[in-house]
């Protein structure tokens, strides 16, 4: 311990302070990079022409798979906002696929039954699906966010299981066997029964979703979300209400995943609890990591990558799930950044 000092000297003047300030007057605070946007545009462009390419190469039958990739890609983008940017690993997002699917599906079934409580209008059903998803996201998210880390993962998984059993018990709407839907929703006067038309409707929605999340990530709320991921206490100590921004992210993500669920039930025309099985939540997480955690468009890459891999694997063996699992373990233990990570290099930060 130091000795108590004797009288100290007077303060020294610091006149150079003003000079230094002037030289920093207009220095940029960030490095802008064009790469994330280039990659995003490229990926979306490829997705946009994918059906045409597939047709030209004789793979017409893949249209259904491609559509599913677009839809799940949308859900993966939504999940990535919470996982990659928020640092909150949700292992229950498939429950929102379920809320959207069942909202849209029940509305169609009611419409067919002529009860007057249903609709086959996408312009009504799909926003409603998003609203329902947001509602569940709010309640379940607020509860789950009372925990962090592994507990958060466990709680989201538990809520997923709870909703799965709930959907299973809806005997009037298919129960655990599921039920076929007589028709897809209509977009105004336009029928969505044509698979190509439906693909492009989904693709358009995907573009909107990617644009929205890109803006969110660059917004003040997005920055605060990332700060909270990096060091929540530190961010609270500069005055941020971290829980509000995390809950907002969760609700938005749930809403978009619910939209994806509504699209999914339209694609398959089959309403079943399987869409919200917890392994689906796992599959969405796999898409996020294959595509590269922390880039907005990564989820789309991951969805396409995973579904293509699965198609290839099925060709070789019936036990393809075994190899998907093996591949997953290998990827996690060896690689870390995923495909988009490679593409975006060090330009993760936006």
């Amino acid at each position, binding site marked *: *311990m*130091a*000795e*108590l*000092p004797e009288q*100290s*000297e007077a*303060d*020294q003047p*610091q006149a150079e*302070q003003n000079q*230094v*300030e002037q030289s*920093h*007057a*207009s*220095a*940029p*605070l*960030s*490095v*802008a990079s064009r790469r994330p946007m280039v990659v995003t545009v490229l990926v979306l462009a490829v997705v946009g022409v994918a059906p045409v390419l597939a047709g030209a190469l004789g793979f017409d039958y893949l249209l259904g798979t491609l559509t599913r990739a677009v839809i799940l890609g949308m859900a993966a983008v939504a999940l990535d906002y919470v996982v990659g940017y928020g640092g909150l690993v949700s292992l229950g997002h498939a429950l929102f696929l379920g809320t959207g699917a069942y909202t849209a599906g029940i509305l169609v079934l009611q419409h067919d039954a002529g009860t007057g409580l249903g609709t086959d209008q996408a312009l009504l059903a799909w926003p409603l699906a998003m609203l329902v998803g947001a509602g569940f996201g709010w309640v379940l998210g607020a509860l789950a966010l009372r925990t962090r880390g592994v507990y958060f993962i466990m709680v989201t998984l538990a809520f997923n299981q709870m909703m799965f059993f709930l959907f299973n018990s809806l005997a009037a709407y298919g129960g655990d066997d599921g039920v076929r839907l007589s028709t897809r929703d209509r977009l105004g006067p336009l029928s969505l029964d044509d698979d190509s038309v439906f693909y492009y409707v989904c693709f358009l929605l995907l573009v909107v979703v990617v644009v929205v999340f890109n*803006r*969110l990530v*660059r*917004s*003040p*709320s*997005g*920055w*605060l979300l*990332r*700060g909270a991921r*990096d*060091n929540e*206490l*530190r*961010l*609270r*100590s*500069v*005055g*941020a*209400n*971290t829980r*509000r*921004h995390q809950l*907002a992210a969760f609700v938005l993500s749930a809403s978009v995943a619910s939209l994806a669920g509504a699209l999914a039930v339209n694609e398959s025309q089959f309403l079943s609890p399987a869409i919200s099985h917890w392994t689906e939540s796992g599959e969405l997480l796999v898409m996020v990591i294959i595509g590269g955690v922390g880039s907005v468009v990564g989820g789309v890459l991951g969805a396409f990558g995973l579904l293509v891999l699965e198609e290839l694997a099925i060709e070789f063996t019936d036990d393809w799930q075994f190899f998907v699992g093996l591949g997953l373990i290998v990827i996690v233990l060896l690689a870390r950044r995923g495909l988009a990570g490679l593409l975006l290099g060090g330009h*993760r*930060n936006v």
Partner: protein
Amino acid sequence: MSDPTTLHARGLDKHYGNLHVTRDLDLQVQVGQVHALIGPNGAGKTTALGQLCGELASDAGTVHLDAEDITTVDLAGRVRRGVARSWQISAPFPGFTVGENVVLAALATAHRGFGFRGRARRDPGRNDRARHLLGEVGLHADPARPVSELDHGGRRLLELAMVLATDPVVLLLDEPMAGLTPGEVEHVATLLVRLRADHGILLVEHDMDVVFRLADDITVLADGAVLASGAPEAIRRDERVRSLYLQEDD
């Protein structure tokens, strides 16, 4: 002229099981003054700081900012009311540049609801303010570089810039001189003298030269309780304080 804004702590207490870490602590920090909190290692200085800023809940006692009772207000809430702390170990946000860290700190207290709209990077007013703050603390590093490139001294200065970005009235500084070179210490000391005019500063420090140079008031903590409190000259001559430090030297 109205009374300067004051942070009062009265009767603060904190236990960890049987360990009584803070005992009946009274402390006051006033705008225009530097109040130093000193004491041997383990005296409870950092815990007291934690209780003042709202990071740690007190088991007894109150904290007031002027007339407002902020005892039950949490960490973020106190920052929004103008009571901000710096940390002994700098932990800037790794995914952001130097300048962006300051912007982030400013964003945290911006009262804007959710803040979905707009681009965090592109607000000229906020960016100018960030640049100004970096200049004010004297951090000359390129603000567009990642924070990982800052050296220790740079990180301590960034820490101060971030605290200032929250527009505080009272600054609670936890060993701001820790690990700095003599030149850097001089620099920060001068900065604190400048800040004193418009802020109240609570300074937890081990560097006695700095303490006696800057402090208007000194409180000495030993075993979580106030051993002595008063003007620097009185503390310097206080027998109990001298023997406390002489004991430590043995």
